[in-house]
């Protein structure tokens, strides 16, 4: 019998640990370093809220917004109301289990129209005692409908944010989803996203991971109809001792679908990035075209990247592949830029920005893309000033 950790005693259930295959790099028994009691009532200072809302990279872009402060919808700051959409996932997964125990609120949206205006779901945590904040979102995009939804996570101080999102795309529906994790540097971010796609659906999904001291993001995407096209991209921009682990399962269940995964991960200092990507092609999913690649740029000798690509293919007529690379900046590229008068620190920034920028290409909305480029330039400037 292993003794319970302080966090496990408060939670009332066991946390995943390194002996479990999916959690071998992210031992939550160790990484959840203190109890984070759930369901705490916290009165947020108006000033803190305003500052955080303003600091969202999308403050000027989002047409409509739902703001959740410490796990509760703030109607004062939101344009949209909660709708009634049933939640369907409840399976035996530690992050989902934690969410089911502690959830307080979340965005429930039913998209029926066809709008270019991005909706931002902004989750902010204000400075207070360490606690767990759990939110549950359900997004349904109806048959033929389309939406662009940004999910932004930000905060100050020490907390554990648990976010579970269910996404259902109907026949010929389209969703452009951009998730940006910019939690406080003392925070822990655990998330699980479950997507189901119907026939002819189009999904463009991008996740930026740059906040939190510990980040674990699970994703499952089920291809439940034919002719689905899904692009899933992500970028890590990590420094200090940040730890980010993304586990993504692409589940091809029907024929003639395409999936593209591209992850570009930048790690500096002692940061550690992990990408575990599984592509499953079920027996019925003939003519699947699935590609996965993850690339890491290690900016220091002590940074680390672990990749675990998996292909599980039961159909016999498919095109699937995966690739993973890790390395430092290309010296020839660097010399070429410097030989034109660009000083070394700027030349490095230019190359790093180009490296992560490739993952932004999945985003079709130019304003959102620009906001992300701006964020990455800010990150690079801060990095230069710390060197």
């Amino acid at each position, binding site marked *: 019998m292993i003794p319970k950790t302080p966090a496990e005693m408060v939670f009332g259930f066991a946390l995943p640990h390194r002996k479990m295959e999916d959690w071998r790099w992210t031992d939550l028994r160790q990484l959840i370093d203190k109890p984070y009691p759930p369901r705490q009532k916290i009165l947020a200072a108006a000033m803190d809220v305003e500052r955080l809302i303003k600091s969202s990279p999308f403050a000027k872009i989002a047409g409509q917004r739902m703001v959740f402060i410490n796990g509760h919808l703030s109607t004062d700051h939101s344009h949209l109301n909660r709708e009634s959409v049933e939640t369907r996932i409840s399976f035996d997964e530690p992050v989902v289990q934690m969410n089911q125990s502690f959830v307080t609120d979340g965005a429930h949206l039913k998209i029926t129209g066809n709008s270019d205006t991005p909706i931002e779901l902004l989750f902010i945590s204000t400075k207070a005692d360490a606690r767990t904040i759990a939110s549950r979102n359900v997004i349904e995009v109806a048959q033929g409908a389309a939406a662009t939804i940004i999910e932004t996570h930000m905060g100050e101080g020490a907390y554990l944010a648990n976010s579970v999102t269910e996404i259902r795309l109907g026949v010929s529906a389209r969703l452009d989803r951009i998730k940006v994790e910019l939690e406080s540097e003392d925070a822990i971010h655990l998330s699980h996203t479950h997507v189901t796609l119907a026939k002819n659906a189009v999904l463009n999904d991008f996740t930026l991971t740059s906040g939190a001291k510990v980040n674990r993001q699970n994703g499952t995407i089920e291809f439940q109809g034919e002719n689905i096209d899904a692009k899933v991209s992500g970028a890590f921009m990590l420094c200090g001792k940040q730890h980010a682990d993304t586990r993504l399962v692409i589940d091809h269940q029907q024929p003639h679908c395409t999936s593209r995964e591209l992850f570009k991960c930048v790690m500096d200092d002692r940061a550690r990035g992990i990408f575990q990507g599984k592509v499953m092609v079920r027996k019925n999913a003939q003519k699947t075209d699935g590609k996965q690649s993850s690339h890491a740029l290690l900016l220091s000798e002590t940074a680390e990247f672990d990749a675990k690509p998996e292909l599980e293919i039961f159909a016999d007529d498919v095109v699937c592949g995966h690739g993973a690379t890790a390395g430092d900046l290309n010296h020839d*590229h660097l010399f070429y830029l*410097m030989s034109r008068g660009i*000083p070394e620190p700027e030349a490095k920034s230019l*190359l790093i920005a180009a490296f992560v920028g490739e993952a932004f290409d999945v985003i079709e909305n130019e304003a959102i893309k620009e906001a992300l480029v701006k964020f990455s330039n800010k990150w690079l400037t801060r990095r230069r000033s710390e060197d």
Partner: protein
Amino acid sequence: MLEIKNLHVKLADEDRVIINGLNLTVNAGEVHAIMGPNGSGKSTLSYVLSGREGYEVTEGSVTYKGEDLLAMTPSQRASKGVFLAFQYPIEIPGVATMQFLKVALNSQRKARGEKEMTTPDFMRYVKERAAKLNIGPDMLKRPVNVGFSGGEKKRAEILQMAVLEPHLCVLDETDSGLDIDALRVVADGVNSLRSVDRAMIVITHYQRLLDYIVPDKVHVLSKGQIVKSGDKSLALELEANGYAEFTGAAA
């Protein structure tokens, strides 16, 4: 402008000596051609002048406009007017050519204490120069050298030279991989940059390029030394007789 004295260079992580007591003086307004067989040290000379890592100067000096060139970083050298046109221009995915040119020019201006150029001024400035080299806006939008043909890469190098307006241009085998039409475009570009306050070192294997870019002086490099210098007729002589005389003599 440039004075190389008794230069000795070896590879940083090997004992192999590549340049072995090279002397060369280049004055403003002059075009010098350096010819020599493969392995004679031509490209190494260009890399040492531009500051590429991997080479170690064991003896001698390189003075550029009265300053110790070897003590400067590659970007400092560039800001002070040294430019290397690469034999094999490097492809840089994700960095648009236009953005690259702008960052390069403004970095140099900043280093020299000049005002940075605004985007509209810069666009005009580049487009004028690009047009002369048959470089359209499409090529300027593409990532640096990515997917460029051999000829496009060389034209892009000359465009960079025209934009950055260096004082000392080192052209490393700019003719390699060019057909005759592309060669003419590139040579015209280079010739239009000839001026009394600009010097050029044209490194080449063949005399062909020198029909278009006519040098003031021609040097033969063999085994890391200049073994013969002359005027442009030396290039014709080499074309007729080959390098055997020099490689044999130095052996």
